[in-house]
């Protein structure tokens, strides 16, 4: 799970305070594992250092919460690239996929296309594994099957999500 890219993505919606970012992150992606404030601010300052975000205005007073962060063009491009590029098809990547879909919907990006690209990547990998299975010995075949079944599970999830994108959009963009 890429915290910096997720935060960048959240920032692309609108300029936000660190506190808002943490709250949204926890609501959509935290799932019982809240993001520590420290990690939020250290990530944000690293992003600012790399020129992906800028601090817009500083409210009077002290403390980190006075800063509002705005995404830069560099940051936006990185989010764009991250979203369009499929994740390497391997097991246990639902969370990444999930984050991408939700963000894409929040940002009004073509989430369905991302899913299609992902499906295609998954299928390409499955074809490779099937080829290994057809050509190789039983051990190879069983290993390939292991991969195939996990990829298939991902694909099922992709299908289900694809079928319910509209509902999900309503949920994440109140």
């Amino acid at each position, binding site marked *: 799970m890429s915290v910096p890219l997720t935060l960048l993505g959240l920032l692309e919606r609108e300029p936000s305070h660190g506190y808002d970012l943490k709250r949204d992150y926890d609501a959509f992606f935290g799932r019982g594992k809240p993001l520590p404030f420290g990690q939020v601010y250290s990530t944000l300052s690293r992003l600012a250092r790399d020129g992906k975000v800028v601090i817009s205005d500083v409210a009077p007073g002290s403390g980190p919460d006075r800063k509002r962060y705005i995404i830069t063009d560099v940051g936006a491009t990185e989010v764009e690239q991250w979203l369009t590029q499929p994740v390497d098809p391997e097991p246990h990547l639902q969370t990444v996929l999930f984050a991408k879909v939700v963000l894409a919907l929040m940002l009004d990006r073509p989430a369905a*296309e991302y899913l*299609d*690209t992902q*499906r*295609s990547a*998954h*299928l*390409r990998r*499955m*074809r490779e*594994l*099937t080829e290994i299975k*057809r050509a190789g010995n039983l051990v190879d075949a069983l290993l390939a099957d292991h991969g*195939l*079944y996990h*990829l*298939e599970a991902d*694909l*099922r999830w992709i*299908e289900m999500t694809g*079928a319910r994108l509209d509902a999900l959009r309503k949920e994440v963009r109140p």
Partner: protein
Amino acid sequence: MSIVIEARDVEFSFGQTPALRGASVAVEAGEILAVMGPSGSGKSTLLHCLAGILVPDSGEILFDGARVHAMAETARSSLRRDRFGFVFQFGQLVPELTAVENVALPLLLSGVHRTQALAKARAWFARLGLDGLEQRRSGELSGGQAQRVALARGLVAEPQVLFADEPTGALDSLTGEQVMDLLVGAAREQGTTVILVTHEPRIAAYADREVMVRDGRVNAPDRIAS
């Protein structure tokens, strides 16, 4: 590689219900193409249009340069009989015929003499691991055996294109994969083009390429990406 069969902007409706809304797909000779999509997406309708079973309301179906959509029913029937092969999900074997007679059926329909047709059909039994089942009736075959017999029937007349509509839909995973393994092996050996309709990714993974049918249109993500 040359394109052997192609659908261009095909539209088709069942009464008021549109099934295809401008579907296009091109299949190269010798290619194994998986047509995927959720149920009701129109993937079976697309297959039926490509195979000349249904005539599109508009759009074109081209096979080997011929305009299938403009042919008369008899011409399309003989096209299906002589140039295409079919494997369906289940229940295509005529129950009163023996397995080997079922396999020989397309040859008999094309007018091949009985002795030759049966000899040719018999050759497929060894090839698909069906030795000794030649005289069984469909009721006496397991699901996997029946589908292998159906596969032999689909390929016995050496068709240019094999249409497989959910060929493993009624089988368990292992049996299904065995059937697919045989299907792909035999098709590659014969150079047969295969159009495989399935909703199962693991089955689609046996193909060279897949297209998605959604809401009556074809998305070919591979092409978008490349």
